């Protein structure tokens, strides 16, 4: 069981993700340089946060052309698990692996703070350890996190359960005041139709340790690693 964390030039949450996987969950994690062209040997891939290519032009707009993205597309198409966090989410949108787009926060400022999220879909590989409707607290840190999509796409996302997280009040109400960046439908995270690709703006890797005072982010890693453990056992059985 091996998770690849992609390193684009300018990624800066790559080490944080690897730290959580290795030190908190004792999982095997490897940093994958963006010029790699194959993801053979990885069971899941994380596109971490940061400022790939400085976010010059538009967040994620240049990273999507990195050589490794062809491999990520292939990996996702074959049903591989792909998680994009913050800049990684932006890159997945630019690569059209997820629907919609990001624009600047409505305050036009970078925002770093804890927000509350309501889990809308607990059936994905990344959220299966959670309970639908439960409120999680996680930090955001972005300047371009206002999620937008055309009305048809939004309708489809809602109808097919692709909205995974929504910004909400601590009590779980989805309100305008609880929306930090102006995202349509308070959307904080969406998954692909097949559910194997998740993009989310909040940073679960920043809240997965008791020493940091918040462990709500464990949800994502527990779900993901649990799923990988289950499939690898199944795989071994099948091969036998």
């Amino acid at each position, binding site marked *: 069981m091996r998770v690849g964390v992609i390193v684009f030039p300018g990624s800066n949450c790559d080490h944080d993700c690897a730290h959580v996987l290795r030190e908190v969950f004792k999982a095997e994690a490897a940093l994958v340089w963006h010029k790699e062209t194959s993801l053979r040997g990885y069971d899941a891939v994380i596109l971490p946060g940061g400022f790939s290519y400085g976010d010059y032009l538009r967040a994620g707009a240049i990273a999507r052309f990195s050589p490794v993205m062809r491999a990520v597309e292939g990996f996702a198409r074959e049903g591989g698990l792909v998680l994009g966090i913050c800049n990684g989410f932006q890159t997945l949108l630019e690569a059209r692996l997820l629907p919609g787009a990001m624009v600047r926060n409505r305050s036009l400022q970078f925002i*770093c703070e804890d927000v509350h999220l309501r889990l809308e879909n607990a059936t994905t590989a990344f959220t299966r350890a959670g309970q639908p409707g439960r409120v999680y607290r996680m930090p955001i840190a972005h300047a371009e996190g206002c999620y937008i999509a055309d009305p048809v796409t939004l309708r489809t996302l809602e109808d097919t359960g692709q909205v995974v997280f929504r910004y909400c009040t601590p009590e779980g109400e989805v309100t305008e005041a609880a929306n930090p960046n102006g995202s349509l439908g308070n959307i904080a995270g969406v998954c692909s139709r097949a559910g194997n690709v998740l993009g989310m703006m909040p940073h679960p890797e920043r809240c997965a340790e008791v*020493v940091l*005072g918040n462990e709500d982010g464990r949800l994502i890693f527990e779900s993901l690693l649990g799923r990988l453990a289950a499939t690898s056992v199944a795989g071994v059985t099948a091969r036998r």
Partner: protein
Amino acid sequence: MGDPPITKALIEAHGLTGEEYARILALLGREPTYTELGIFSVMWSEHCSYKSSRVHLRRLPSSGPHVVQGPGENAGVVDIGDGLVAVFKMESHNHPSFIEPYQGAATGVGGILRDIFTMGARPIACLDSLRFGDPALPRTRYLVRGVVAGIAGYGNCMGIPTVGGECSFHECYNGNILVNVFCVGVAPRDRVFLGRAAGVGNPVIYVGSRTGRDGIHGATMASEEFDAGEEGPRTTVQVGDPFTEKLLLEACLELMSTDCLVGIQDMGAAGLTSSSVEMAGRGSVGVELDLDQVPLREPGMSPYEIMLSESQERMLLVARAGREAEVEAIFRKWDLQVAVVGRVIAEPLLRVRHGGAVVAEVAIDPLTRGAPSYERPAARPAYLERVARLSAAEVALPGDLGGTLLMLLGSPNLADKRWVFRQYDHMVGTNTVVLPGADAALLRVKGTRRGLALAVDGNHRFCYLDPRRGAALAVAEAARNVVCLGAKPLGVTDCLNFGSPENPEIMWQFSEVVDGIAEGCRELGLPVVSGNVSFYNETSGVPIYPTPTIAVLGLLEDVSGHAARGFCQEGDPVLLLGETREELGGSEYLKAVHGLEAGGPPRLAWDLERAVQQTCREALARGLVRPAHDCAEGGLGVALAECTFGSGLGARVRLTEGIRPDALLFGESASRIVLSVPEAHAGEVEALARVQGAPCQAIGRVGGDRLVIEGLVDVPVSACREAWARGLERQVLHV
């Protein structure tokens, strides 16, 4: 395009005095070339040579059991155990930030980050101390927005969290704001790199961005005062590229994991000139540079421009001969420029070639150790007599002390700085245990149980009224803030911000401040391991208040269980360590409510300070108390209100000192800490304080949703919070 002839006007334009120029003639035995004139000009500028401050800075204590590297390198280094060291420094970027706030502040962050990773340490946090002018001025708002966005733009992109600092306002900064940036990194103790050239024949390698025409004479600009109405020489401000710096950081750290590297230094102020000269000087060797090899942004740059450019995101390094290809491969991988631009030579001189000709040849020593050093005249400023007097009769007691408390909480200097901090990524790196806004920031050190506590402090009013005591108070407060998280202070870095050193009154302030810092550091056993001096912070002859900014780094043995803060349990006794005296001099209250800046700053008794700090640290280490809170600007009233913000729990308190109620509530007596303690432990804490010799009074209990100070104040916690939370927006940003 030929070089201009060396005329009197040209010499003056380079900021060199007649005497200094005569010395150049004597050193060279001939007229300097234009390039040499430029080299002398920047190396002998105040910014690079510390010519007015060097004789004074020697008085600062700089050694101690934890010190691995003291002043003189790119940053200071202290041992934090587990085979690791903390590398830290603070630097000012005042002049550029006033001229062009976004880029000025951004490149200030970029510069200090390079100072840290050039030593082999991965930066783990920045803090900044910001001072702006009168909040009522539109320009202040423009500068606040620009500076904060610049710090955020650079630090966030680099992925280095900005975890704390201070931000305050005073009209003395109307024409000269202060942007002081602190950075700390962590490295293995045996992998610290120095800015030292060595090994004759070793290649001198240029890495990073290309060299352009930006920032030429930035160091000289930072060594002059501004004139009124002058928009300033905007072209001397560099433009930052944090993405390239991020690549440079990763590439340098990758290089440092090999054994190719001999020495490395960032090209900061005075660019290629200072980096090559300083590296040669520290290694007692020489350097020969071939400017034709330097990667340029545009053709046709003169040797003068190449040597003086302050283009950002560049480093100069010396590698082992024969390992050039390995170095090149690493920097190419990260899409950076890399070029062998010279060699280490035995003769201790800087020789610069361009187009095949030698365009400069100067001995190293006169540019470094032998640079001019002045013991400038100092005279006690006349204003001190005038401001020393403060008669209690002049200060009318406010009728509504609760209202006064709310007003103070919402005043620009005391109000919540969340608007600032939320624009900084303060969590990236996943080490931030205590978030911005507390007495000090706290970071865990990965791979260990330890934590680093960081505080930046300074009080310009105290230093204006009494520079020596003001500086000593800043050292005490910064150390106390670190102690409030349970950490043991290990070392200090400072930024000393002043007006023109050519004014004897400013020089007197400077000398006094150095003595005050030296006293504080000696009394608390703290070495000053790095620092920076910024003179010429004045406009049209009006200087800023003397403003030393003190940063203290503390070490916490066990970082777990420190995330909470403030009052957190109903019924907990509230204890006050230290004494409240009738001291209103220099207080925020006196300025904000009465418009007075007078009297002496609070007294400082080192026995008391040590006893209070020791008690607090010991009580935290034994797990007896909840997170502590320093009592500083705004006094006890404000400190108690601040303790309610985390949980919303109020308190009922009774203060029995027989002094003026406003001094009791808002006076800023030093050496005080507010503690809340589980009932069962209160006696033990009091006993501990007795042993240490620290006054300790039980002043009340946590509980309810009001802050009640019997007979004086009775306000809802929610009102305190509202005033505090909205203050900055109401008074400064007007949104």
